[in-house]
């Protein structure tokens, strides 16, 4: 019995390995398709914390399409939420002498060393939705997350009045998500001091949606008079709106999120759902923007630290405007 098993497993191993090697081949042979730009065929590495989030997948799509246009080879590595692996990923990208590195949705705190290495290797880095300030980082591309927070805060007040009772679901781990809740709080504190934040809970995952749902259910039992859930990411929105809708509280409680997941937009479009606001961030645009930035930087032959000339063509921050999706306009964004 045992011997057959071991044979079986070994065979399986080899089969999968061979099948796995294919994609690598594909990416490396991509530039050949576009002969004319072969002269300037750059290789750009992409390191994502985890490409299992619609947001980063769309960004990744953007990157690929844009890259294909310019005949740029992209190598994508996903670290599966293991910071050490992400560091190792970036190391191996440096190893492969990529011309530039794009970091998708990273926890900036753990990347100091990585950035030092890239800077040392003279490889430019573009952060997408990271918000990382350093000499080696030539540009941060993101939505204006703070503005999202404030807009959401304003919207809640408009809908529920100046004494709205709100519950926040936050995710302090990521720069982007953190900004949203922090700016919202600041906004209220400044403009509408009567808004009460009943409770604020960081939801740390990995069961984000499930935890958000459980938390929402409990909050509704604890506080009968909640007006709104302000959630820093549509992931939580999926959970909390499911909870609120299931409890038939959608007429009392509204939920605002950020990201613009298709699913959330559909919920907003549905009059019965408590989900009533999100910001459709065009992460696909961000992805392609990142490639464009890289290309301009490389074509201009810039180096780190950047000369003022380079700073002009490659500004240190680029905001991709997000679209405010509400009950009114949701329909047109449903795919």
């Amino acid at each position, binding site marked *: 019995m045992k011997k057959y098993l071991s044979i079986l497993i070994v065979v399986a191993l080899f089969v999968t390995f061979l099948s796995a090697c294919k994609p690598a081949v594909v990416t490396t042979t991509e530039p050949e398709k576009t002969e004319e730009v072969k002269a300037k065929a750059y290789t750009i590495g992409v390191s994502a914390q985890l490409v299992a989030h619609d947001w980063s997948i769309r960004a990744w799509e953007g990157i690929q399409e844009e890259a294909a246009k310019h005949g740029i080879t992209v190598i994508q590595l996903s670290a599966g939420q293991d910071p050490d692996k992400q560091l190792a*990923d970036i*190391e191996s990208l440096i190893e492969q002498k990529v011309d530039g590195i794009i970091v998708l949705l990273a926890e900036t705190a*753990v990347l100091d060393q990585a950035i030092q290495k890239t800077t040392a290797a003279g490889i430019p880095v573009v952060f997408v939705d990271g918000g990382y300030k350093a000499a080696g980082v030539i540009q941060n591309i993101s939505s204006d997350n703070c503005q999202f927070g404030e807009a959401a805060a304003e919207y809640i007040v408009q809908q529920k009045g100046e004494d709205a009772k709100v519950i926040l679901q936050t995710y302090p781990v990521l720069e982007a998500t953190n900004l949203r809740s922090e700016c919202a709080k600041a906004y209220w504190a400044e403009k509408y001091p009567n808004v009460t934040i009943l409770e604020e809970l960081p939801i740390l995952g990995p069961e984000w949606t499930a935890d958000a749902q459980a938390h929402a259910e409990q909050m509704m039992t604890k506080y009968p008079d909640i007006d709104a859930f302000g959630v820093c990411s549509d992931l939580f929105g999926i959970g909390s709106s499911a909870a609120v809708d299931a409890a038939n509280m959608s007429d009392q409680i509204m939920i605002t999120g950020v990201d613009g997941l298709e699913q959330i937009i559909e919920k907003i479009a549905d009059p019965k759902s408590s989900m009533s606001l999100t910001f459709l961030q065009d992460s696909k645009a961000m992805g392609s923007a990142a490639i464009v930035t890289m290309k301009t930087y490389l074509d201009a032959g810039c180096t780190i630290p950047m000369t003022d000339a380079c700073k002009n063509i490659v500004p240190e921050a680029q905001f991709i405007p997000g679209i405010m999706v509400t009950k009114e306009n949701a329909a047109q964004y449903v795919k």
Partner: protein
Amino acid sequence: MHRKNNWSSVSNWLGRYGTFSALLIITASFLIFIPNFRSFSNFKALMFQVSMLVIVSAGLTIVFSVGETDISTGAIVSLSGVFAAFLMVKNVSPIFAIVITILGGVILGAMNGIMIGYLRVPALLGTFVTSIIALGINYLLGLGSSIRITKELSGDFYLSLGGGYLLGIPIPFIFAVIITVILLILLEKTKWGLRMYAVGGNREAAVTFGINIRKVKLAAFIISGFCSSIAGLLLSARLGAGSPIGGDAYTLDAIAATFVGVSMFREGEPHIGGTILGVLIMGILVNGMRLLGISYEMQIILRGLFILAAVATAGKRALFRTKLF
């Protein structure tokens, strides 16, 4: 009959040298087919990448050698990193932070040892409990987000522990080598090692030999805890931050590496040397797959299959059939 003999000889060969030849084949093929793999700097990167795992696995091997197992290593690694960072943010001097952190690791190890050695709690259960508690403390300190360790806080010294070089060799790797050598000597050249093997190999005999089984097990778990905390410190120094999830992967990886290496020496018994080879294989495998641009999903699948293959072909002893109750 004959086919059986053939097979058994084959499987014996696989069990003994399979893993090692796998290492050679993998390395060779990578050297040939992946240009970047050859470069010296990649080897340096590789050294960085395997160091912590080497340390954790070496500690785990000690636990295996007394016939127990430890699934709290990853949790302790993560906690140690966060803990050290937390202390330094609270303006504790790096040296002091390091000492306290190591102490913490030792205490958690001792907790395992007491539960398992003295109270006869099944090892899986005992170390499981420890890991939950470690996780709890971890999240309590950092609220689930990483704690940055900046130069201003820790000075170059601390960060260089993780990222620096000594005579062109990555410092974590030096640590790994030192610890490995020490543990290797401990296990192979000292009476303590001999007693550990005796306890793991034949409990009854160990009793009649007059060995204090409890003490030996306690010692083993303390060593494991110690190693995990060291790894945690180095990891945080390498990342320049204490990450609450940074070490989680080590639990599986270390167990896997030890299992993979188990066939090499002493025929199916835990052995530091074997473990190190195990770690190297895994490290090289992952490093190479990265350079090949194999997707994350495929990477974990392949790693899983590889471990299974190694374990299935290896091993005389009923491969640590750790019973729960």
